[in-house]
């Protein structure tokens, strides 16, 4: 088993959480791309479509869309279908940050390496919202939670 690596980034929302990585290659809109009842990605993101965000560390390039994004992150949290942490290449928009603070979801952005290719889907990831991302070997947990289907 490979050792745990630490990737530094910019801490955006404080807190600590760990889970298997879900790596989205495409920009994500929390309003519209995710079914809040199940946490399943229903939007046009081929890399993760049909997979659930629930309990995952979501790794993605950038958030897009609406000033209503906060509401949907908060709703995912209320349904227990939320990602436990976010790692993103670019600073997400203020609404996402607000939703993450409400939902206690730590965020690290601008990581020092290209996490979209260096973090393997399913790898166990721990996010420290002060700006650290620790990546361990895949736990295999991620695949068990996929293909719940779209509603």
């Amino acid at each position, binding site marked *: 088993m490979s050792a745990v690596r630490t990737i530094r980034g910019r801490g*955006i*929302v*404080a807190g600590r959480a760990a889970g298997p990585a879900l790596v989205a290659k495409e920009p994500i809109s929390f309003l*519209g791309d995710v079914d*809040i*009842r199940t946490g399943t990605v229903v939007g046009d993101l081929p890399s993760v479509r049909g997979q659930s965000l629930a309990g995952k560390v979501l790794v993605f390039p950038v958030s897009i869309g609406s*000033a*209503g*994004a*906060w*509401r949907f992150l*908060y*709703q995912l949290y*209320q*349904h227990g279908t939320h990602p436990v942490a976010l790692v993103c290449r670019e*600073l997400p*928009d*203020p*609404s996402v*940050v*607000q*939703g993450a*603070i*409400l939902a206690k979801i730590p965020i690290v952005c601008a990581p020092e390496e290209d996490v979209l290719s260096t973090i393997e889907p399913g790898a166990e990831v721990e996010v420290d919202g002060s700006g650290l991302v620790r990546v361990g070997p895949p736990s295999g947990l991620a695949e068990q939670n996929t293909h719940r289907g779209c509603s």
Partner: protein
Amino acid sequence: MKLSSYERAMLDGEQGEARRIAIAGLVQLGDAFGAEDMVEIGYAHIHAGMALYLHDVELMEELAAIGAKMAVPASANIANADMANWRQTGAPETLVRLQQRAEVAHQKLGSACSFTCTPYWAGHWPTWNMHMTSIESTVTVFCNSVLGARSNRDGFFAVYAGITGRYPRFGYHLDVNRRGTHRVRVETPLETVSDYSALGFHVGRLVGDGVPVFEGFPHRPGLDELDALGATLATAGGVALFIVPGITPPFADLGQAFAGPAPHDAIVARRTDLEAIYDQFTTGDGGFDLVHVGCPHASFEEMKIYARLLDGKQVRDGVELWVTTSRQVRQMAADAGIVRTIERAGGKVISDTCPMSCHFARTTSPDPALGVEPPRLRAIVVDSAKQAKYVRDMIGCDTLLTSTERAIETALGGAFRPRFGDQR
């Protein structure tokens, strides 16, 4: 970020739990966006507490329960049910009772129970250079672009800003972001308010979160026209500010709007662009269940127009006509005899909500105990491209987009009347 002793005291909990939570959230937000310090705000347009979302009314109740009060004038955004005249909308009583709890929370918080997306028509009218915050992007864009106030497109933290009277200094609170990014030349007649709605949608899609600067309006746009334009700029794109030189404070001309020479290339808006928006939002087999006007929530002037079009006439049997506006404008309209004229013609005057805000159980997840069923609607006739977009995304039914005048003619005649004769 740099905090004043007053802000530090809030953060240290010396002013109570509510202010501590609120300022702590705002400090995190400010740190994320590189804010140097806080601005003092003069107004906050805040979250209503939405009965169709799980544990959302409770968000406002919890703040009220720990003693939160609005430190500045505050108005409540649109909600999920007409809390007074709900029977005419078909909402289940369980949903309405939950929504009414939000009203009690706002009474405790000290925010005005406006429950509208157009609080300015209800008397909340911030001024030039006043820092403010808004959860509703239509309010953000109107206050920035028409009144010259300073607001970001915000989320729940508008509530925190209201509680503390503070907001981190970033985005549209800074002069550097309040200048034009795109030049837009209007080369089409704009004959009705819905043409401004279509224009805003067209341009919003092209400029994203930029700052469009408009020239070439056929006349000086009025308040309802500016309101319609801003609402769709904010819906189709991420626009928070548009500039019409000579209208938007403090920009007198193109040079000031761009803080330098205006770009040579302009986005040109033509009649065909407007037609494309009307076409895009007109789908289905032509059948419809509901005709809706009043998005954004109607002004008193718009209520007068509806009444004039409906006076002495009768909405066709089997057609439902909804006019949505704020409680305050509804009261003014009632006092002027306008509500009676609309109701006598068979129209319904609805406050606190609108079709996309009360019928969207398809995309939300209310408590099953509320008994909310997604409505089975074929199509809604609308006069606003904003309403059209969200009806489609959130209710998932067809829309037919036309002008206000023709939407009302549609309700009277029972057959869809398109904005342009050659459309569909």
